[in-house]
């Protein structure tokens, strides 16, 4: 593969032309649908302050009668404090998204350079890093996240940090295996033979090749981060209760569900599932598109 081809394949995988993707069968459709879901949820969350019919925070308490079932005035009903569930659902994604984005960024900042250098340099450093990463990787993710979140305390940044620690090894592993195989390809060998600097090889030859894998891992990681964040919130390690958050609404809705109040848990629940689903679909589709072994026979 020449560098140009690499770039082209990168473009094809990262910037999915929706129409052309649709022709690539199920995998393409997965990416298209997943992207649509994610983009619309992110967009909804971003413009939430302007589109929520009522204040989703504690200032919006008692805008309606508590526990009103969905009706024209409150399409998603109200919760036990008379807050409009539609507004809370629209605004409630911000915590999850912030946590997810932040944790993915942290993961990339730590995991990618670590993976690149460790595997490129090799030797003792690589072996040690590998062992450490494998140890963390084998660990039950949520439990480690719980332990870290418990020591750090509540809040968005702390949640993101504790999730990031858990997922750094996934990046490391993927990048490492990629680098090891790319290192042996003829064009890297060729670059070495004409005396290219290590830095050049690393950033101009190897990095562009691992980007697609990073994208796949990151999308899958998004879904995991969201589910882990929901789990942390469920056991009380989320953000404070007065911030509108799907995680808290889910935990609160769980309390109300036995009383037949299905709408408080359902709508935020659907959105968490949708968001996680969106990312999973994109990840699944991308990995299949980038791994053409099974794409078409």
């Amino acid at each position, binding site marked *: 593969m020449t560098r140009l081809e690499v770039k082209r394949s990168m473009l094809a995988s990262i910037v999915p032309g929706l129409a052309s993707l649709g022709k690539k*069968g*199920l995998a393409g459709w997965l990416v298209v649908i997943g992207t649509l879901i994610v983009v619309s949820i992110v967009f909804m969350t971003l413009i939430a302050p302007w589109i929520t019919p009522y204040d989703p925070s504690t200032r919006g308490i008692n805008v309606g009668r508590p526990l009103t079932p969905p009706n024209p005035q409150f399409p998603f009903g109200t919760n036990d404090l008379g807050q409009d569930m539609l507004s809370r659902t629209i605004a409630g994604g911000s915590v999850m998204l912030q946590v997810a984005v932040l944790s993915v960024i942290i993961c990339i900042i730590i995991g990618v350079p670590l993976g690149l250098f460790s595997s490129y340099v090799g030797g003792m450093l690589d072996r040690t890093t590998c*062992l*450490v990463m*494998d*140890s*963390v990787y*084998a*660990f*039950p*993710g*949520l*439990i*480690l996240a*719980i*332990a*870290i979140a*418990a*020591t*750090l305390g509540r809040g968005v940044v702390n949640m993101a940090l504790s999730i990031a*620690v858990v997922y750094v090894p996934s990046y490391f592993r993927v990048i490492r295996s990629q680098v090891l195989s790319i290192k042996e390809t003829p064009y890297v060998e060729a670059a070495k033979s004409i005396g290219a600097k290590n830095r050049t090889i690393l950033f101009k030859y190897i990095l562009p090749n691992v980007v697609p894998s990073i994208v796949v891992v990151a999308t899958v990681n998004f*879904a995991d981060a969201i*589910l882990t964040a*929901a*789990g942390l919130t*469920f*056991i*009380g*390690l989320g953000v404070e209760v007065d911030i509108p958050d799907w995680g808290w609404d*889910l935990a609160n809705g*769980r309390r109300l*569900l*036995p009383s037949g109040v299905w709408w408080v*848990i359902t709508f935020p*629940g659907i959105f*968490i*599932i949708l968001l*996680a*689903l969106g990312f*999973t*679909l994109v990840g*699944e589709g991308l990995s299949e598109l980038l791994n053409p*072994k*099974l794409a078409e*026979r």
Partner: protein
Amino acid sequence: MTLRSYVVSRILLTIPMIFILLTIVFIIVRVLPGDPVLLHFEKMENPRAMEEMRQKLGLDKPIWIQYFDYLFNLLRGDLGKSMQDYSPVASQILSAFPATLELAIFSMIIAVSIGIILGVESSKSYNKPKDHIVRIFGIVTYAIPVFFLGMIFQIVFGVGLRWLPVGGRIYPTMEPSGLRIPLSQPPGGFATHLLLSCVAGLVAVMMCVVALKIRGQKTTRKTLGLLVSLFLTVWILWALAGWRFITLGELRISTGLYTVDSLLEGNPYKFVEALRYLCLPSLTLGLVISGVFIRLTRSNMLETLRLDFVTAAKARGLKEITVTYGYAFRNAFLPILTMMGLQFATLLAGAVLTETTFSWPGLGRYIVDRINFRDYTAIQGAVVFYGILVSLVSLVVDLLYAYFDPRIRL
């Protein structure tokens, strides 16, 4: 590499892994927050009590001495003391662990069965509607938060249909400890019991059939079948003959796994009860994990189904089930086995949420309780326990891999 040297090197590799893990946990819980005692108390308002706690927990020593104490204590099986009441964490963990283990084992069985059956079906009808439906099913179950699914099951099967209990491990009068009480009518209708015991029996038989199919050996087939029927007959006869002596009082604990203990006691009624209580939690957890196995089985099956020996087997007119399971699946099985080891960790993590949802008194609930108590030494102990457990499971899985793969076996 011979099997022996592989085993030895794999075991030796586990030691540094556990060591690194212990260090990471120590850093996260002890070093990063600075002073867990300070964290426990939030503010420096009660220096006397804090000093007392430091002394009792040995946290007044320099950090590196604490580290060596921690490692040394671990060697003796000491996971530290609880900040709450200075009780030993290890014994608490060991008493809570069987519940989690039982849940994990059953969830794993459910997840793997669903994953394998659906994954194989999906791969056989590659790119057809059935395949798409299965794949989407796998993705959706993966995206559902455990507690959301659990709650829906509780509402539907517990409150709505009243088929299955929504919380706990066994009917309260059967909860084990040292004493017996007279029985009142336990819950559950005739249909449920009949259904469940039949299903349990069928599952056992099916498992034997599949095992034999995979091994495909004639002599063992006969003996195994006879063994199974012998075991079941003996168990049932024993239970029936001794039913008058069976107490439906407390379960005698020998392993802590209620299903196993009830069998050891020869008490089918308790076994059914334990199964009933296991149903919803393990189904919830199993479903959520199953997505991974579906995906894995499917992709591995797609690869093996294209291999020559599968076509060759078909060309020899072997039965489809033999080709699918004895040929394609048996060769796709090893990566799945590895994944089982890795997913065991995910499963333990998912169990934290499941246990809270179903009031299941296991390690997950213990760790959540400890967090609420800000009991950092106990959290550390529990996390270390999880870490060692996971390392050992992956060791066992790797050894099993070596055992199952004839190419490594020699």
